[in-house]
């Protein structure tokens, strides 16, 4: 099958998943169910696209197929910011009440974090791997600080951060859907001329530089994009640790080409299918009361181990 035909099939499948989720068992009065389910589906699509997009780009600039942006500690920092806000201002504080404001502050702080990592580490060492190592250390640092503060706060307030810790589509922060959609659209537009350069990056740093890619500039732009894209799913629904690895690798296996335009589209469709389809089956068919992210992390963990064993055999 040709790549474009595969994309068409995947697109149809994801459309079916989305429509099933909205209209299955909707009853006669659509006006009641539509806004609620519509918001959920919008969050799913946005999350799916953001996760797929950021993971594929991150894997390209790090030359590694089994990483996701979470190794850099982006979501740990996000969680840390939420906990700090709760710790100082409480559950009724302005940070928690106004979600758009919260998101703007958090995303801006994340950008600042990336900027410092880039300035202090990458520019001096010129090495993506060192950057990731520092990222991993930062992840642990922010993680520990977060847990420490969570110990101290009121249990009721703790429940609020907990929502951010695990992705759940049952409490979508609907206020953020519009902002997220705008950001994803802008990022996607900004990215289009970059995709062909990222294709060249797949050859490795030396070939990329030889072919006229300004390596440092491309890494910087990619990091900015990744930071923005990571903030969206974390804010909308919560963390999705393994989804990025699953969908990007599935996309690489499915697509015959290495071209980012295809791979990212394919990965995005896979992740919409995984989220919307998975949530539909869980909620409406089996009436399970767990969130899809638990299943995705479980399946993702197994797939990750499979990838590790396969890579080590090479």
């Amino acid at each position: 099958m040709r790549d474009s035909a595969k994309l068409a099939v995947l697109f149809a499948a994801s459309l079916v998943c989305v429509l099933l989720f909205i209209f299955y068992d909707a009853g006669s009065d659509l006006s009641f169910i539509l806004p609620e389910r519509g918001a959920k589906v919008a969050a799913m699509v946005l999350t799916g696209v953001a996760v797929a997009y950021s993971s594929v780009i991150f894997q390209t600039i790090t030359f590694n197929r089994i990483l996701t942006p979470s190794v850099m500690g982006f979501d740990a920092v996000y969680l840390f910011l939420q906990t700090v806000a709760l710790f100082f201002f409480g559950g009724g504080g302005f940070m928690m009440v106004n979600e758009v404001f919260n998101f703007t502050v958090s995303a801006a702080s994340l950008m600042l974090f990336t900027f410092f990592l880039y300035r202090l580490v990458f520019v001096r060492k010129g090495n993506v791997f060192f950057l990731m190592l520092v990222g991993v250390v930062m992840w642990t640092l922010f993680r520990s600080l977060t847990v420490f503060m969570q110990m101290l706060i009121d249990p009721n307030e703790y429940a609020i951060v907990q929502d951010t810790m695990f992705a759940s589509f049952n409490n979508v922060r609907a206020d953020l859907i519009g902002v997220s959609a705008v950001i994803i659209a802008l990022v996607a537009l900004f990215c289009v001329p970059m995709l062909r350069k990222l294709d060249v990056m797949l050859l490795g740093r030396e070939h990329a530089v030889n072919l006229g890619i300004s390596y440092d500039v491309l890494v910087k732009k990619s990091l900015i994009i990744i930071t923005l894209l990571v903030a969206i799913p974390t804010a909308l629904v919560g963390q999705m640790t393994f989804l990025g690895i699953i969908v990007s690798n599935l996309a690489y296996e499915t697509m015959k080409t290495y071209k980012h335009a295809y791979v990212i589209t394919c990965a995005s469709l896979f992740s919409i299918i995984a989220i919307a389809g998975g949530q539909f089956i869980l909620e409406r068919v089996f009436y399970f009361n767990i969130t899809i992210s638990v299943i995705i992390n479980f399946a993702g963990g197994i797939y990750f181990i499979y990838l590790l064993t396969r890579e080590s055999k090479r």
Partner: protein
Amino acid sequence: MMRTENISKFYDEKAVVEGVSVDIPKGKITSFIGSNGAGKSTLLSVMSRLIKQSGGKVYLEGTPVTDIEDSELAKRVSILKQSSHINIRLTVRELVSFGRFPYSGGRLTQEDEDIVSRAIGYMDLMESENNYIDTLSGGQRQRAFIAMIIAQDTDYVLLDEPLNNLDMKHSVQIMKTLRRLTDELGKTVVLVIHDINFASCYSDYIAALKDGKLAGFGTVEQMIESGILKDIFGMDFDVREMNGSRICLYYT
């Protein structure tokens, strides 16, 4: 002309290349020779902006390379390093097509396709052009990478040990191709090469490095000479004139 001026490269305190100034003559083949660790590859990497030097400057036709846009430089200078592991599955033709990226930005025109075909033909890879590179032998893979550099069509071609992994037949074939690139198309080729006899038979100029410093630069006739080679490598060479080339005997 490509010129390095007082190039130095330090790793921590250790100098790998120290104060090397050399003029690479245009339209000729220049070979860098020297022992392992003499700084040949590092110098080549600095010249091609893969590594940032600690001191000194590289000039391309009188302009410092730092003043030339990366995308513009890729149309004028190309570099191929020794080990070339690639993460993705590519066919030979797809790989060679990447050589046109500086011109086409990834959208190949008919002209680009023709140049790619010609480069594949130059390297005798027509039969395997649709094979995946991870299925090729080491020699074929090396030729595929050289084909990519040929497709890039730059005036200056820098190659780091291009004969690595190649048998005698293909080594000769590659050296002849490089000769044709210089003689017919006027390219300037700079090589790091370990086989002194290939350097002697196919180069115009030889630059010798020892302990990170330039130990000598000159034509083949000036440089392939037992006294000079003994200084560079610290061993005895028996240099003979055969069929108009200088051949070094050093095996026993």
